[in-house]
């Protein structure tokens, strides 16, 4: 048999596992409907469901990461109404936020449009929001605006923020955090280019909420 690259093997393994998580989610949904929806087990089931969803989203992120890093990702940009895009993201992540007693919302001009790869940005926003879930005290807000030919999307929380020195921050964002999320966000942003201008990310303090803010800059054509 031909020898395979270890990265390819890992990517296929993640893919297989991800599909199994999908099957588990379907089965869980079936189970959820058979039990009393006010019963004590309902909350546990929702917790399992949200964890599985997160696991699924993380694996999707790793798959994209693998392909971005190995130049195997083909960008598919399209124009989106930001109001609709962010509404979709908040809708998908709302159950997880609710399970953690956090408020999740978005702010943007209803007529704002942006050009980007929807799947990548869905994964980036998801990753950033999951991350914010761990540090936010009560709320997370996603903002979108246009600034000097860049579409600017920021995910802000009211936690302790990135104030602490870099190492400590890695530590805070700990629980075995490998920094993959940020790396993924960076690769995704950089993959967006317009006339040789690349996208980027920035870690900042949220001026509105006082916590951390991850900002993604995506170049737009003039």
């Amino acid at each position, binding site marked *: 048999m031909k020898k395979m690259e270890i990265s390819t093997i890992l990517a296929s393994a993640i*893919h297989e596992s991800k*599909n199994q*998580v*999908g*099957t588990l*989610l*379907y*089965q869980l*949904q*079936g189970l959820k409907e058979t039990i009393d929806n006010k019963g004590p087990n309902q909350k546990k089931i929702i917790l399992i469901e949200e964890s599985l969803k997160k696991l*699924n989203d993380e694996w*999707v992120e790793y*798959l*994209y990461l693998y392909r971005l890093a190995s130049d195997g990702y*083909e960008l*598919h*940009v*399209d*124009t989106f*109404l930001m109001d*609709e895009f962010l509404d979709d993201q908040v*809708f*998908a992540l709302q*159950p997880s936020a609710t399970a953690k007693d956090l408020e999740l919302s978005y702010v943007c001009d209803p*007529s704002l449009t942006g*050009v980007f790869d929807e*799947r990548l940005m869905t994964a980036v926003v998801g990753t950033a929001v999951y991350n914010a879930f761990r540090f936010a005290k009560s709320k997370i807000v996603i903002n979108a605006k246009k600034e000097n030919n860049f579409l600017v999307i920021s995910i802000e929380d009211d936690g302790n923020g990135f104030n602490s020195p870099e190492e400590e921050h890695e530590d805070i964002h700990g629980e075995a955090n490998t920094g993959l999320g940020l790396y993924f966000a960076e690769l995704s942003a950089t993959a967006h280019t317009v006339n040789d201008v690349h996208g980027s990310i920035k870690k900042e303090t949220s001026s509105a909420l006082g916590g951390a803010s991850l900002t993604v800059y995506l170049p737009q*054509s003039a």
Partner: protein
Amino acid sequence: MAQQDFSNKKALLIEDMAEARIMQRKMLTDFGFTSIDIAMKAETAIELLQRNSYDVVLSDYNLGKGKDGQQLLEEVRHSKLIPNTATYLMVTAETSIEMVMGAIEYQPDGYVTKPFSQAVLQRRLSKLLETKQRLLDVNTALDANDLSAAITAATLVMEKYPALIGKCERIIGESLLELKEYEKALELFEGTIKSRKMPWALFGKAKSYFLMGDLGNAERYFRQLMLDNRFFVNAYDWLAKTQLAQGNPEGAQNTLIEAIMKSPKNLLRQMELGRVSLLLKDSMTAEMAYRRAVFLAKNSCYNTSEPYLCHLESLARMSDEGPLQQRQKDNFNSTLKKIHDAFFDDPADKARTYSYEMDVYLAEEDILTAKQIFEVWIGEVKSGATIAPTQEQSSTYLSAFGD
């Protein structure tokens, strides 16, 4: 977003995996759908679509061994088995998305990525149906093939709902191309490209140039599209057309081979490669392409006699170089049998079949069999079941018989 009433809508669910199928069916039932038909593979879906009409089609991209969801979509859209007023939602795994999105000519109304919750599906479907509702006049006009009315309606929708500007511009542009208003179409596509660099707009621009006869610019923009995205296989098809028009069949053949390597399951593309290869007298490549076309034609709504006859033709042309090898002869007989089983009633098809058979047997110098076929042919001409050989054919045969 308005709550949709699904109870009076007919749904078709196409999914090969039992688990997902049961789950999705249950979801649709919970939304209020009362009429849900199920297909486990593309071929069954085509049969159902031929018999019934549906408001909503929910199809998986991955459908096991047969055709995939994208091929199914292309076929049913091409043969107008689903009206524009119906909603087509494709279920994908995140890894198949590139192939799906690369097909710019035939796109579903929306995508949903597995695994999805009931809430996500319901929301996606409601949104899509709402959009369809807004575009109802446009799609009704398109279904009636009244393109001017579609353009007028799309212009109105665009003013009322700015978020639908992309969809409307695309419909207007493509209608203008159909109406042969190439200059106007080009102007519209260029306007779109200026504000939003949409692949369909660049595709439209390149097609406008092609149809206006500006082959240089057509080639340039089809190539740009291919460079921007290697999955836009339709751009390869059109580049090949352009190269043919430029008198460069070799280039066209190479382009088509490249396209087939990316997307091997498209029957029309295989047919085109066969046709171009025969032009180049490259009967080997032609035979391979047509053999695949015959394979793909089975259970397809393009299942006409053409791929089968072309396959025989390519083998007949191969035999011009010398007798067929046993394996090739087997291929010939296998396709011949398929023609006999399914298509042997059209007089012109019959005549073509007989002529290819005669070519093959004459190449083997099997004069006896060739003569028998010729006699059957002439006999059928008398009864009116087929048409007579051309004068050229007759004289070739008779001289071969040594009569």
